């Protein structure tokens, strides 16, 4: 009954039973490895710490708002539009209450590394003058606040909802002028996917891969998957160049071209036309080879076992 002739391992039930503990252990290790990444994303102990901090900082919020340069000390919850400008093509600046609320969030979650006035420290960079697009990108993609210090922050469910994020953006922007504004992606509906595909292959696929699956670069740096990015985040990333990504300023890439890429990423990349069946993860021949060998040749070998003599 020794049919696994290649390895000369006798195939008998009792041997399988002996293997079972190893199979179970291997499965557990594999599951642990696959969840390793998501484990790094959400630090559970971190959230409870932040809650403690939030209690203490809300009590002292009235005194700390005085350090804000552009906001008044009267914490009136009315929408007084004297805050900084956040959006491209929009004349409406942020309100004072946004700036004040943003200061609370900033003190809670950002100041421990970036400093009370966002001036930076030995652990984190100065944020003054980076501009609304940069702050918005890092906070809305969940990369900031950082769960643990690794080579490159990872995308994770954001700590703050969009309006809270905008408060932080308003506060940090209020500390100093400069930097790109949050891009306006309303023109995406009129953009050209074909042009976007061409620009993507030329400028983005070199790291993010042509299917947008993302990949490892070097020394722990990586190009993230684009499958969860929102249109605004894609445009922000292009304009601000987060982490290792190069920055494409309006002189290099026009707003229309950015919109083309945004449309291509959020439509063709995030919803690929898998006309041929299961997409196999969009990682190309690696997955195809495994399917061809394990499923294709594997099933046919089982058929041979079924048809042929086994002794």
């Amino acid at each position: 009954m020794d049919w696994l002739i290649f390895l000369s391992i006798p195939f008998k039930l009792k041997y399988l039973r002996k293997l079972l503990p190893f199979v179970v252990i291997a499965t557990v290790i594999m599951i642990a490895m696959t969840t390793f990444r998501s484990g790094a994303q959400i630090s559970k102990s971190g959230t409870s710490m932040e809650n403690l901090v939030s209690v203490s900082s809300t009590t002292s919020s009235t005194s700390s708002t005085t350090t804000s340069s552009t906001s008044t000390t009267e914490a009136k919850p009315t929408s007084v539009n004297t805050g900084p400008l956040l959006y491209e093509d929009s004349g409406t600046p942020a309100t004072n209450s946004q700036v004040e609320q943003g200061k609370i969030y900033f003190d809670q979650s950002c100041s421990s590394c970036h400093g009370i006035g966002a001036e930076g420290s030995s652990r984190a960079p100065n944020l003054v003058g980076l501009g609304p697009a940069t702050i918005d990108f890092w906070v809305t993609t969940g990369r900031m606040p950082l769960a643990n210090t690794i080579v490159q922050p990872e995308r994770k469910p954001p700590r703050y909802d969009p309006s809270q994020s905008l408060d932080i953006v308003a506060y940090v922007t209020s500390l100093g002028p400069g930097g790109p504004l949050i891009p306006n992606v309303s023109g995406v509906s009129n953009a050209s996917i074909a042009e976007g595909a061409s620009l993507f292959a030329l400028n983005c696929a070199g790291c993010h891969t042509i299917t947008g699956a993302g990949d490892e670069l070097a020394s722990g740096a990586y190009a993230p998957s684009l499958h969860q990015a929102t249109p605004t985040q894609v445009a922000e990333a292009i304009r601000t160049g987060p982490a290792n990504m190069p920055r494409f300023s309006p002189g290099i890439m026009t707003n229309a071209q950015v919109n083309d890429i945004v449309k291509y990423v959020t439509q063709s990349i995030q919803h690929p036309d898998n006309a041929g069946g299961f997409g196999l993860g969009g990682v190309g021949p690696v997955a195809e080879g495994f399917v061809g060998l394990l499923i294709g040749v594997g099933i046919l070998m089982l058929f041979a076992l079924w048809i042929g003599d086994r002794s």
Partner: protein
Amino acid sequence: MPSLLKKDKPKQTGAEKATAGAKWLDDRLGLAKGGRVFFNKIFPDHWSFMLGEIALYSFVVLLVTGVFLTLYYVPSADMLTYHGSYAPLKGTQVSAAYNSTLAISFDVRFGLLVRQMHHWAADIFLGAIAVHMCRVFFTGAFRRPRELNWIVGVTLLILGISNGFLGYSLPDDLISGTGLRIMFSVVESIPVVGTHLAFWLFGGNYPGNGVIIPRMFMLHVLLVPAIMVALVGAHLALLVKQKHTQFSGPGKTEKNVVGTPMWPGFMFKTQGYFFLVVAVLAGLGGWAQINPIWQYGQYFPYKVSYAVQPDWYMGWLDGALRIMPSWEFQNFGYMIPNMFFPAVLLPGIAFNIFIVWPFIEAKVRKDYKEHHLLERPRDNPWRTSIGAGALAFFFMLFAASSTDVLANYFNISLNLVLWFFRFATYIIPFFVAGITYKICLELQALGRYGGRRKRFNVVLRTAEGEYFSEKTPARPGDLDVLSGEEEEPLELTEEVSEKIRESSELIGVSSTELNKLPPPADQGVKRVERD
């Protein structure tokens, strides 16, 4: 009176008509003799003898689907504007080759199914060759007198890999273009003649002036398949001429082959298997997407996608390229480019060793005898461990072709993965070979046939605390290996004798002469001991 004439002629049944037709053909072509050899051909029943058939039938599917694709594919690099039904590329500049592949995928009825079946069939064709080759290698089926058929088989493997690469490059999409760019550099890296050769193949410096696509097309659909069809024919003709090998067993000797004749029996089995192969290929072609070129876009030399891998059978070469350190050698004013070692020298040495392996083994083992009985892998630990080590080496190279995917998936630094493979590729094969050798020896001790056990050793401790081990008393069915106890000769059961009488053929005797000889079972069959 035509009606009367008709009555004179006796009415023929369908079978009689067929017989008459066959006789007509036989009188003119002499088909009966060949047909007799064909129908009497004996096929051993062991399942592992079906593995080569996966390759054969995938090849048939490749030819049929390939003909269909040739009807629609346009081998031209001329640029035109895309007007097909894949919306995201509408209005862009694409080559005629890419345009026609998109048309096959979206606008030709059954086009995408056939294209995907063709690609899956190629992957599985080479996978089946690899598995079949393992069977032949590990059981020693390549030994004298079958060295030639081994060489034909290895040649088919090389041609299959080459044609796979050519076919992969034909659609002119972003990923295949990158592969072609690498191939240009590989050819260019050959010392002295490299540049001339690469410029000659591509019609100038890369990307050439558009001649490479028609040239690859000619090679892919005409030259290489024609050679492969001829070699498959030779492979099978040699198989019929030399007859099958078989595993040893009751009544199976170096002089006979026991199994199922082509007719009646094996023909139905193999037909059924053909349908199963086609079913699996069609299933994969219909459900599992392969090479979605529309997501990749037209190839331009100035565009590149990160994380480009070739199809799996080229993976080991890609892996070798990836883990090659950036060494360059300057000798006598000439530089041997870095790529030459992993991409030209490595496959060159590997395939040459494959080809001459039967002769190497005969020389090293001093075994020049004819062999028709197969060895079980455990019975030749020397060969089995070398084979397992070689497989481990190629597997490590193969895995090294997805360094980036591994690093990304497990969230490890790419540099670490790369350095791991740079060492592990050379270390792990030795461990695998050593462990395999040990496993073979252990399995040998289990006995050749089921039901025999190794005798246990028990560890005893005396009252003084001294430990020693001794064998347990022998029980019926135990095989005492160390004492060299002889295995009792195998009894031929009536059932086995019947099988040998009914369905076996003799080595070195043509099938047509078989009927004149007494049945093999009456010739005093005895088990042939091997060295």
